[in-house]
């Protein structure tokens, strides 16, 4: 089961990495690479490497916050929504995924030095499955958002 989950995450990371390397514009490439990093964080957690996994996810979150807070993410990512940011299905699912991640990861962080035996494997497996479900949720809702914006912009694709 773990091997199947590993390769599901692996295919997601490889697909996103391939998209990032092939896309002509840098901004969607950066977005795809962030998906690759999230998948790699999930794989590290699946392998029982909590510190590495958390490091990747924390750097990813910090990068996203930096982009959002200091670099006018909307302009860079070409999402011209205008006005105040509103809650959408994608944002709500993103916040929910982050909350679940933190809820599961903080207890692991507290006893990270303890040698981990078989009883820890179930929690890690649950975390990895939730990571996969979160990624799928974000991907599906992101697809809906892009489709809605394309329709809003008259099919211009930006």
């Amino acid at each position: 089961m773990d091997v199947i989950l590993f390769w599901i995450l692996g295919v997601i990371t490889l697909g996103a990495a391939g998209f990032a390397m092939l896309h002509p514009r840098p901004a969607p490439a950066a977005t795809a690479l962030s998906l690759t990093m999230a998948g790699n964080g999930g794989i590290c957690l699946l392998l029982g490497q909590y510190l590495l996994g958390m490091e990747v996810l924390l750097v990813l979150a910090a990068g996203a916050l930096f982009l959002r807070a200091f670099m006018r993410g909307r302009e860079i990512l070409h999402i011209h929504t205008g006005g105040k940011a509103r809650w959408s299905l994608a944002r709500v699912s993103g916040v929910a995924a982050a909350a679940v991640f933190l809820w599961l990861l903080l207890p692991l962080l507290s006893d990270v030095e303890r040698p981990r035996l078989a009883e820890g494997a179930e929690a890690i497996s649950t975390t990895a499955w939730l990571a996969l479900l979160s990624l799928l949720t974000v991907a599906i809702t992101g697809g809906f958002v892009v489709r809605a914006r394309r329709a809003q912009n008259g099919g211009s694709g930006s």
Partner: protein
Amino acid sequence: MIPLEHVLWLAMLQVSLGLAGLLLRRSGPVVVLAGILMLNGVLLAVAGLAANREGAPLQAPGVVILAHMVLLVLSGAAVAYAFERFRRPLNVDEHDRMKH
């Protein structure tokens, strides 16, 4: 338990993709992103080797994590700078001299 071969194959594919991007793409930010992808492949290999250590599994050493974090942050800063500074497309092939 995930076999080490699987992890190393995935790591190799990620590093190969990153290398291909590094060699073939011309856009400055994407070249840095390709470097980050290669870094992620190396991280995956480290994680797999530490998890499949003979005897008991090991957490990756702190110095590896610190080095990876520093490199990721520097690469991210480079991408952010490239996005902010070069509003027009940055073609790395045009900057082929060490001194202007």
